[in-house]
């Protein structure tokens, strides 16, 4: 199953390589004369294969942080290194390429194109990619398999359930083999049972080596992650390993070994 995805290492990485490095990131919106500090000095480091949940009250700057991390938005000041590359000085076109090749976005409202089939939706980022054109059908197919949707390839979004739509969206985020998967409230539009199954999918991707950041309001979602960051007023309020990680570190490792084989 994992072998089909050529861009990913098949062995679980060690997790000491830095993927994201933020230093004193601020994002200031100007509304009239008012200056809103949506991000107010964020410093953060994420290693490869980390599994992070970001929590916080509404308006605390979670989405703003995700947009900056996803290179959709530029920080007002500070340093943002992605895979060791400084992104703050990149041109718009170069940022578009970074988004295409190294970032996978999952949205709360799925954002599938309604006139395209599931597989066409998944192929879409490959249109804009430099070397994704030739094998795009195959790659889309294998990544749909990875999210457990190989039997819904020809369905249009309106023929899919909410959970299935989100799986297609996750497949689309993964198709270019991104360094990080960013999900802003991926379960916000789903019932709790479906949310749980989507979170199991994230767990599985994490075990396969994917670095993941999830924004959420729900405790049970956050507790799938290994590290939980709380935000408040544009600052990091707390940053700690989750209970799950602390309690079951060794046990989980064995369990993963069992599931992956």
């Amino acid at each position, binding site marked *: 199953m994992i072998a089909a995805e050529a861009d990913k290492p098949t062995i679980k990485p060690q997790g000491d390589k830095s993927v994201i490095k933020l230093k004193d990131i601020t994002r200031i919106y100007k509304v009239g004369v008012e200056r809103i500090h949506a991000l107010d000095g964020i410093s953060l480091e994420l290693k490869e294969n980390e599994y992070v949940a970001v929590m916080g009250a509404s308006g605390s700057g979670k989405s703003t942080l995700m*947009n900056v991390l*996803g290179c*959709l*938005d530029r920080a007002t000041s500070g340093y943002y290194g992605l895979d060791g590359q400084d992104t703050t000085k990149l041109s*718009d*076109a170069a940022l*578009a*390429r970074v*988004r*295409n*090749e190294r970032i996978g*976005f999952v*949205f709360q409202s799925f*954002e599938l*194109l309604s*006139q395209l089939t599931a597989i066409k939706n998944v192929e*879409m*980022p490959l*249109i*804009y*990619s*430099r070397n994704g*054109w030739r094998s795009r059908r195959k790659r889309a197919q294998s990544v749909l398999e990875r999210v457990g949707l190989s039997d819904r390839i020809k369905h249009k979004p309106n023929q899919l359930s909410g959970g299935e739509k989100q799986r297609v969206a996750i497949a*689309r985020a993964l198709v*270019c083999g991104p360094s990080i998967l960013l999900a802003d409230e991926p379960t916000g539009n789903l019932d709790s049972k479906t949310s749980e199954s989507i979170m199991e999918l994230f767990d599985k991707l994490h075990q396969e080596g994917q670095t993941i950041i999830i924004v959420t309001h729900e405790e049970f979602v956050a507790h799938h992650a290994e590290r939980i960051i709380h935000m408040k007023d544009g600052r990091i309020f707390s940053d700690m390993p989750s209970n799950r990680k602390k309690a079951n570190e060794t046990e989980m490792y064995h369990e993963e070994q069992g599931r992956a084989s």
Partner: protein
Amino acid sequence: MRFIMRAIIGFFRLFYQSVFLSLSQIWANKTRSILTTIGIVIGVASVTAVIAALSGLKAKILTQVETLGSNTIFIQPKRPDTGPLQHAPWWSIRFLPEQFDGMLEHCPSVKRFGRQTWAGSQTVSFREKSVENVSIRGIEPDCHKIESRPVMLGRPLSVIDEMQVRQVCLIDPKLRNDLRLDRDCIGQPILIGHNTFYIIGVLEPRPESLFGGGDQERSEIFIPFKTSFKLQRYLYIGVLAESKSAEVSEDARAEISFFLRRTRNIKPGEPDNFEVMSLQNLLDMFNKMALIVTMVASGIVGISLLVGGVGIMNIMLVTVSERTREIGLRKAVGAKKSAILTQFLIESVVLCFVGGLVGIGFGQLLTTGIANIPKVELDMAYIPLWAIGISFGFSGAVGIFFGMFPAIKAARLDPIEALRHE
């Protein structure tokens, strides 16, 4: 080098994708697309139909030039545009046969000329059969050489027929059939009015003609020029002449005018009461007219393309705002500005091309329509290939020009704002 190759391949992919995407968009919004492209459809349909009509007319004139020879000159009485003769009755300015006597000696550029008369329509009969409304022309033998109407049976009119004012005639095959004459009808007597004429030959059927006038249904009889005055005392006379070569055809016209002004006693300063026209002249006049028609038509087409273009721009703006989230998403997954721009530009061009295609279809229908109107000389109307090229070119240009603004608007959208839209 590699970079350029990559850019080209990248563009090709985007192009291919965008074309399919926009076709599916157009298909998904059929009614809207039809309404939007109506301006383009009308513009293209009318331009192709006008070009088709003009091309047909020109093709017709060129065939005519082939049968008549491009050195042919027509001479006819004509009321001047100014002066006291402006409203003169036709008989006062008609040609008299003797006004042309000695023309060849005085006009060195003229090779030959022939007078002809139109002796009106007569009833022609053979035994019990009779045919009404046959047009009778009296011609001098040289007319045969100027206007190529080969004699397929028997012999043409000769100088001796002319000198002896013989009652002989040439008929066309249609009349031979209608009168139930034998195939070899040479020497048979027929009655034209109350006069007996002997058939000396059968002409080839008349080629389709613009200037010869009359419809194809009417039969024709040619008789010697002088003999025609036996049927009627006063006749309308016209003259066909031929210049020695196409190069001297203008000289020939000038010489003839000069000669006729003298024989018709026109004083210096008075306007001509006749006209001398070469086929080249007619062709020039046609080209001038065609140019004016083309210009007027282009004006109309331009306006309808403008209206069509504004419609396209409007619908593209609607499309962009409807699909703001899609644009945001595409940017989020790595589409550059140029990719979004290309996508929407291609969409508007494809929309215009579809309009152009439908327009050419309608233009073809219109062309078939006008080609089948009876008694209008447009049966050779056709849409030339270059007109199709121009139609597509203009449609594409309209698509690019009016699609540019919406496409730029789409490309400039901020992805975050776009994803938050609605």
